[in-house]
């Protein structure tokens, strides 16, 4: 399957499934060919598009481009890997997907990032609400230093007003179980989050992100500070998580992209060069630059 950004927009119009249309991926998209917000589900080659960018451009200052005119789909309940050399804009792109650039001084985002058919950069869209639906895990594990394991996991719920203990308890257990950390920490939920090992801390951060039940999970090089063993656990976890959530992962490591992802997008100097099924991009990339990067001609 080839899903070049430009072609994709052309096919898109014909692929929108109307009411009553047979839709796959019903659970996550509300069923009956509609997203939970009531907008019609968009499909490309029969696969549901959960997120999509159109001409997404991020500028630092007046002239420096972080990314330029990136248009690509993110498919529902799959793993999309973003690869490319350092400074190619893959993290910039990822952070634009949940409006993480909002706080940056002198950063300008133009174009659209569309979740369930709705542009998250529309003025009436609240960034805080969007971030509850699109979670994020960072390169360095960032447990909240003053909080216990328990408080870390339920921070996203508690700090927006959820007080009911049974709800929190349940959410914490579920999130930690989903993040494959429950068995290791269930007897010491009250100890500080910082007391865990690096790999455990990263899974704690994943649990924390999962606790607010996001629909999309953005991961920015989540294993780059971890040892091979912890990396393997996170990768296994990603495989389990994609049953429920849509995952976009930035990785420096091409082998990792090949191992964990269903789709891979190659970024180079602020542009998205090509996106394809992972298998295809690694075996027969369409673009010469992709070919050169993957074969190690430049990095």
């Amino acid at each position, binding site marked *: 399957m080839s899903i070049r950004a430009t072609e994709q927009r052309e096919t898109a119009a014909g692929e929108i499934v109307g009411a009553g249309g047979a839709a796959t991926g019903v659970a996550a998209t509300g069923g009956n060919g509609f997203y939970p917000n009531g907008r019609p589900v968009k499909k490309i080659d029969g696969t549901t598009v959960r997120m999509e960018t159109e001409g997404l451009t991020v500028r630092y200052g007046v002239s420096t481009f972080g990314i330029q005119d990136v248009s690509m789909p993110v498919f529902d309940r799959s793993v999309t890997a973003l690869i490319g050399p350092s400074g190619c804009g893959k993290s910039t792109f990822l952070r634009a997907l949940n409006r993480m650039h909002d706080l940056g001084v002198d950063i300008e985002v133009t174009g659209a990032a569309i979740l369930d058919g709705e542009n998250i950069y529309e003025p009436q869209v609240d960034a805080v609400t969007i971030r509850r639906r699109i979670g*994020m895990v*960072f390169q360095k594990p960032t447990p909240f230093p*003053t909080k216990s394991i328990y408080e870390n996991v339920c921070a996203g719920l508690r700090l927006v007003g959820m007080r009911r203990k049974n709800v929190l308890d349940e959410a914490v257990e579920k999130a930690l179980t989903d993040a494959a950390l429950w068995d290791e920490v269930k007897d010491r939920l009250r100890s500080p989050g910082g007391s865990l090992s690096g790999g455990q801390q990263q899974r704690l951060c994943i649990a*924390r992100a999962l606790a607010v039940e996001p629909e999309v999970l953005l991961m920015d090089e989540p294993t780059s500070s971890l040892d091979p063993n912890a990396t393997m656990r996170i990768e296994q976890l990603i495989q389990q998580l994609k049953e429920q959530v849509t995952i976009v992962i930035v990785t420096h490591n091409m082998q990792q992209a090949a191992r964990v992802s269903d789709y891979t997008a190659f970024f180079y100097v602020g542009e998205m060069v090509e996106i394809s099924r992972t298998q295809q991009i690694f075996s027969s990339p369409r673009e010469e630059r992709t070919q050169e990067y993957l074969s190690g001609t430049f990095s």
Partner: protein
Amino acid sequence: MTLKARYARDAIIQIVMVLLTALVVIPLFIIIGYVVINGISALNMDFFTQELGSPARAMRGRPTGLVHSITGTIVIDLVALVMAVPFGIATGIMMSEYQEHPLSPVARLMTSTLNGMPAVLMGLLAYGLVVKNTGGFSALAGSVALAFVMIPIIARTTESVLRVTPWGLREAGLSLGIPRWKVTTSLVLPAARAGVVTGILIAFARAAGEAAPLLLTSFGNNYFSLDMTRPMDTLPQRLYSLAISPYKQWHAMGWGGAIILLLFVMITFLVGRLVIRRMERQMEQ
């Protein structure tokens, strides 16, 4: 350079550092020693239980003391602290967390200016704001003056400790869909709390030693009072008036008061250190 020469140079530099440090520390010990030697004789039971009264009391050997200055210092300083902490921390947050806000650079300029301003001007300000408008000197006016001394210090230290808390903490909070103000108050501020407390202590100690702002506000009082609406005595200011008085007995009491003021500041820092160490240990575990 030979290995021996490098060792020698290392040793010389170490000696120079020790000497320079000693130069800083020795005067401090001289001051403490001098104050203790001169004041220790004045410290007796009466000193801690009696009010000063008129000079006649001291001259005729009747019981006299500085209990009213000690309680006054504690009351005025604590009230000032309660007033200053919210403003100081809020300004610090504005300067560090809301740098894009137009008030942020203004606040930074103002706090730097206020930090360098003679404290007597804070007294003048409180005089104009409180004393003039309430019709008389009062402990409350003194607290307001000291709060003005404390606010820029608290704001500055809060700003600098917030700035060194990892940026990732904010992003992690925001990425969970936690509103920005809540990220600041519930995640960033607690992570920086040891530094914030240090700033509050520095401000408190600094204000506790100020006499000038109080001359025009809490005014001073020879008698015991806990009424915030009336003049109240404080140690720094009492030291000043005892020192310039013509009575030998009062001079001795002044030295005694200086010991108490020193202890007051030292205990503040000691308790503060303990609190901070506990906070730090909690975070490390």
